[in-house]
């Protein structure tokens, strides 16, 4: 499906804006919403571009910057913090060699912070794309990331 078709797969009502942005972003190979896409969404819903851009930048799951193939979202909420979340965040930054919000040089991972992922029973936790990983420690973290790397063609 082309971007236009994706945008037009939902009714042109404003309450569909978030759903449309989700679909467009999911189809984008660099995992983000680029400017022409946002403009087309704005035209389709007959909304100002600035408004659509405002919505896209409000929500943490949307990005207006290109991202890596996998988005690593590490939970920054207090329960994970209590269970060693800060160490996990530091390890992730060190192992991937990027700061939060940035993408690794090979374009594989983008590192992001997330609010509570709702998996506090297995804190500290992170989410890679849609998949949850819990009970993290430095060793497990490296294993998971290495496995993701190996899965790449």
């Amino acid at each position: 499906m082309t971007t236009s078709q994706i945008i037009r797969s939902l009714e042109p009502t404003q309450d569909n804006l978030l759903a449309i942005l989700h679909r467009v972003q999911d189809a984008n190979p660099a995992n983000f919403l680029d400017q022409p896409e946002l403009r087309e969404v704005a035209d389709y819903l007959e909304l100002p571009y600035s408004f659509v851009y405002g919505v896209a930048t409000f929500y943490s799951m949307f990005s207006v910057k290109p991202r890596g193939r996998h988005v690593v979202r590490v939970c920054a909420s207090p329960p994970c913090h209590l269970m060693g979340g800060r160490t996990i965040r530091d390890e992730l930054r060190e192992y991937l060699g990027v700061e939060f919000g940035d993408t690794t040089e090979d374009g594989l991972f983008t590192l992001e912070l997330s609010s509570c992922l709702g998996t506090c029973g297995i804190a500290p936790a992170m989410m890679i794309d849609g998949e949850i990983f819990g009970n993290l420690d430095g060793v497990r973290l490296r294993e998971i990331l290495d496995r993701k790397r190996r899965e790449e063609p």
Partner: protein
Amino acid sequence: MIPLMHVILDVGAEAEQAGARKFREVLEAKLRKEFLSEDVRIVESANLGVSGQGVCMLVYPDEVYYGNLKLSDADRIVDQHFINGKPVEELFLDSPEMRRLMAWRRREGIIKKGRGRVVLDNVGAVDPENLAEYKSRDGFRALAEAVRGGTPEGVLDTVKRSGLRGRGGAGFPTGMKWEAVREAPGDRKYVICNADEGEPGTFKDRIILEGDPFRVLEAMALAGYATGAEEGYVYVRGEYRTSIDRLENAIRKSREAGYLGRNILGSPFSFEVRVKEGAGAYICGEETALIESLEGKRGTPRLKPPYPVTEGLWGRPTVVNNVETLANVPPILRNGADWFRKFGTERSPGTKIYLIIGHVVSPGLVEVETTTSLRELIYGYGGGIRGRRRLKAVQVGGSSGGIFDPSVLDEAMHFDALKEKGGILGSGSMLVMDETTCIVDMVHGILNFFLHESCGACFPCRIGNERLVRTVNGFRSGSARPSDIDLLEEIASAMKVASYCALGQSPFLPLSTAIRYFREEFEEHVNGKCRAGVCRFKVLKERQEARRWTVVMSR
């Protein structure tokens, strides 16, 4: 064909990582080989209530729990247990913690049949994707009775008499909310299910949505029937992929079977439900921010009043109920208000789902009556503190709840429990902290969270959170002055008065209680001491160093 056995396979995040999906494939292959595919039904459950046990499953009718399963165990269980009827004892779920927990439960008589299970009775017991299984457990009976022989007034009256209070955090009486919407002028009204569960430490709504989605739909239809709404929305946070998929499946199947859509079960009542997906914003759990987001805007809160009951979605009267609140509705209507009132206390009837997390032996959730004490929750259901350490503090009600010392352990966890002590029950989350926790560092973590999640629309919250984090950081780094303790409280109380919505008011509770119960620790930090050894006092050390050099050089 009715299966002879049911296997409830845990596919929660943890089990999934341990290979639950692969295990299912192997088990299915073996069942096919033995021609047992029709006799043994595998049901996936989001949570079996165990943790740290790898792949685990519960086998009915024997009620046998298996844990830490390897792929090779599948054959053995099928041969020995399913075919020859001898459960494989070596593979039973077992661990010292579990044994201790079971012994405690037996001693305290906690496992009493049927006790307290109002909301979660289907979770783990039915296939969440199968309408027939939901119906076999009295599912949609309340809705059928209401639209066929009942009246909207009757439904409303039962909910009011039940005394059900909102489970989202505020504890507002559900019946009163419904009545306000019913009486509000307007021909179009809406029902919104708030499934934007984002309160740190809370995952009860996810378990309900993943484990029993039909129930939420039935409850929404009942709310629509009672209030005169014909449209409903479930606003689910974008991170809850499984919940969204299960809900969409449940909506499709309910509509096909005539439980949703036009003229439900041939009656004049029509009700449609749509799923709306969030996109990552804690603030959208606040009802007016949620409504803004649902309308396709940035999720910034509206000023109240007007409340959603009169001016909600698209300016029309709207019921906004939490998932757990709604999940209580069908059993209340099936069994009556008096039945519901048998559980819990006079002012907080029913059960509550509590999340027991942090430094406990078995973190997880439990649904018990609102008469249950904090001690029972932590030491009974949570299995006590990890690693033979001592309890230091517990934060009750999520990140915006109060932080208490062990003196509150014997309080029953009903809605008004901690009011005079300056707390709330909130979402029902109990974050347990042992003595290795530094309260100042924990408060820093909490405030950082609020800073990250502030939507920025009103300045007391936007600037106040920034100031709070900076001030509390001073305690961690060693640059704080004694007066900073009062400064923290002052900023938080100003935010409480002046902020637009609950988020800006949130830092006050954890901060004021932390200071009330652990003031000493804040004072120690001013002097460069952290009793838990967490804080590094970088600034303090640098200053000491600088001072030392000044002394050396002036000589």
